[in-house]
């Protein structure tokens, strides 16, 4: 079996995997990072979104072996110790989650948007979320959360 080495949340990791092992399987089953979820099999729901080399990607639609040498960040890796990331805070403050299953993917996707656009409009957020499905919230509070989180991130950098 191929061996794959990558950095996950800043730590060097490696594992022996079948070539067919998806990145999400490597994260969940090999590394026991179960915050990244699988909600569909057609690459549409976005529960599995992580960052690969700084941009959002669906970890259900990548092979682990494709990530050889890559920097991968998951939901488990964005808080600074006990200090939540501003986007995590924004989701809690704005009731941007209910069952929580889509939430890690939503947050990771939102971070990619916020990195490109520090003050996205409601419409920009809604369009950005094409690849993230939520069945609980009706998106209303997710959109609020992401707008607030992006603002908080920009303010944090400015200050």
């Amino acid at each position, binding site marked *: 079996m191929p061996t794959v080495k990558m950095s996950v949340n800043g730590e060097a990791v490696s594992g022996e995997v*079948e070539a*067919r092992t998806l990145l999400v399987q490597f994260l*969940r*089953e090999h590394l*026991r*990072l*179960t*915050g*990244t*979820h*699988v*909600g*569909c*099999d*057609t690459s*549409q*729901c976005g*529960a599995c979104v992580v960052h690969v080399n700084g941009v959002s990607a669906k970890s259900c639609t990548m092979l682990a072996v494709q990530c050889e040498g890559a920097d991968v960040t*998951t*939901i*488990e890796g964005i*808080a600074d110790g006990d200090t*939540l990331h501003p986007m*995590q805070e924004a*989701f*809690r*403050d704005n*009731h941007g*989650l*209910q*069952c*929580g*299953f*889509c*939430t*890690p993917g939503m*947050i990771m996707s939102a971070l990619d948007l916020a990195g490109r656009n520090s003050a996205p409009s*409601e*419409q920009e*957020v*809604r*369009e950005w*979320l*094409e690849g*993230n*499905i*939520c*069945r*609980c*919230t*009706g*998106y*209303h*509070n*997710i*959109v*609020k959360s992401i707008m607030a989180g992006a603002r908080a991130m920009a303010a944090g950098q400015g200050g």
Partner: protein
Amino acid sequence: MPKDGIGASVKRKEDYRFITGQGAYTDDIDRPGQTHAVFVRSPHAHARIASVDTGAAAAMPGVVKILTGADYAAEGLGGLPCGWQVTGKDGPMVEPAHPPLAVDRVRHVGDQVAVVIANSAAEARDAAEAVAVAYEALPAAASIEAALAGGAPQVHDEAPGNLCYDWEIGDKADVDAAFAGAHHVTRVELVNNRLVPNAMEPRAAVAEYDRATREYTLYTTSQNPHVIRLLMGAFVLQLPEHRLRVVAPDVGGGFGSKIFHYAEEAILTWASSKVARPIKWTAERAESFVTDAHGRDHVTVAELALDADGRFLGLKVDTRANMGAYLSTFAPCVPTYLYATLLAGQYTTPKIWCGVQAVFTHTVPVDAYRGAGRPEATFVVERIVETAAKEMGIDPAELRRRNFVPADAFPYQTPVALVYDSGNYEGTLAAALAAADYNGFAARRAEAESRGKLRGIGLSAYIEACGIAPSAVVGSLGARAGLYECGEVRVHPTGSVTFFTGTHSHGQGHETTFAQIIAERLGVDIDAVEVVHGDTSKIPFGMGTYGSRSLAVGGSALARALDKVETKAKRIAAHLMEAAEGDIEFTDGQFTVAGTDKSVGFGDVALTAYVPHNYPIEELEPGLDETAFYDPANFTFPAGCHVCEIEVDPETGAVEIVNFAASDDFGNIVNPMIVEGQVHGGIVQGVGQALLEGCVYDDEGQLATGSYMDYTMPRADDVPSFSVSTQTTPCPHNPLGVKGCGEAGAIAAPAAVMNAVHDALGPRGVSRIDMPATPARIWQALNAA
């Protein structure tokens, strides 16, 4: 009031683990030595199983065990039970056997035929492909219409004509008499489209057997673990409760689809003792589409009789409801007691008749999905009322006002069995119309027309019956379970509190809402309260979460348990302060003696209860741990009005929701933030039903919408933000005065959206559009008009 008490928008206690990726869902559980299961499923809607050959598969790498329907049948175990027996005009419903693994026939695509257990999921899947099942395909009846046609393929031999039951409520002759005197009769034909629930977490289960204790443990994605334990233990596997533990950990949404007892739960539990290792199964989404119980799927003809002033004289509703291939756990009650009994809506319609034919088809079983029966009823009532208003030239809001049950008429007995507890329908209508700027609509329509867009506005004044109850009544109607709830308040020696509830939270925020009630009542800090749910080994008993019952029924059990805690604590406090029990007052966590400055804190009383040195030990047991079971006196009746405004692009048929305003009456509210979130989510499921979601089977019974490539899930850019507000008439018959908010949006929204669509298209001569009102359908209708 403590800052985190009742009425405060407290941030959710459960959120930390979810936003940091620490939630523990069933698929996140790995047990030592775990194996993995993959089910072999029928590709046919209807077929005879000639043979199942597992030989080649069993020899594949990693395979531990393969079990078939014949293996299961050989042990004389039970089939999946139905929890509600409806009695129709001709006697009890037909209740066919539902084997958890098919033996000789498969009856829908996805019907499970065998289970392959292997060391890894990939090996199990590889081997499942090698299980050779010889099917003799048979013709299928994949729709209500096809199943009721003469000579239709039979789903079950014991159900001639594919009829499960033919049921009615009301006196038809009486209603016909009302129609005879009508000034106007409005008739509508409606399809309530079949939906796939699609909780984002696919169903999953992990089962294990402990040889030492002979105890089975099942982790499962369930809304009601005690119900699963009862059904699976008593009816399917014949295991006593004390040797069967069912855990529903974090669950990623349910919407009804995780109420039911599914075959995979029973098969995994059964197989776990055979392989003597834990077994995990997680559905792929494609599998969820063909195994999770679907929702809705009604075909209805309704007629409303009105007098010259637009007063409703009578309503006749004739409905055919799809049950699918087998009776899912609560399927039979959905199109009857949760549907026909709601057909009075918010109105004083004096005479109502409803007939329901429940039909077997070669499709996935249909059962409760968010709203369960009540969205279907609201859609009938609110579509026909709106249509009648248009036909009679009366403003739709005004026609509703003329027929509302007046605010001073409660309790109100409807002609279809229910007694409405409280409400103010004029109030929610007025608030919704104001929020929607109903009076300004004509100008907005004219402006839209100048841009080539067709604008429409639609109302939906809905009512729902929540907190299903009382046990004796539902029992008389065929329920095979009680519908009370249980709560245990365990005060610890240092004054912190654990609350064990039989309800289950899978997004609803119980860990926060219940903690707020406890913080308020006991004066403890909300962080000193822990809410435990979802484990039959920890919680005395429970009926779970569905039908917007958790706060109305589970919260009431909590309130009763808190009453007991307070009563006992007051006796302890009275002893400590050497005062009469009747003189003790309890506010903000302090016990005081009326008229004195004596006081003792709740924490000291708790400590005394567990360290009973100075204690009335001969009159009172030590400890402060109280359990209550609450059986409700009546349903609760949340109600309200939703107003939707849309624009249609007539060139493409695309619909844009430009405004959506809701005013709801949920009785008293514990956490407004959570309530608003529930309404938002419900509205989008309702919008999804109206505009996007439609489950399609082809004539052969193949599911044409078996993935998100073809089944349209609402996405963020399909919907706007919403204006939601509440009005309050407290529920008079439960201790918290609460009614329930979880389903309102899904119940109200479809009619509001579809009334808006019809309002927009009516002037172009379009009289009927079925849900989902997709661009293609709208364009076609405009083209044909």
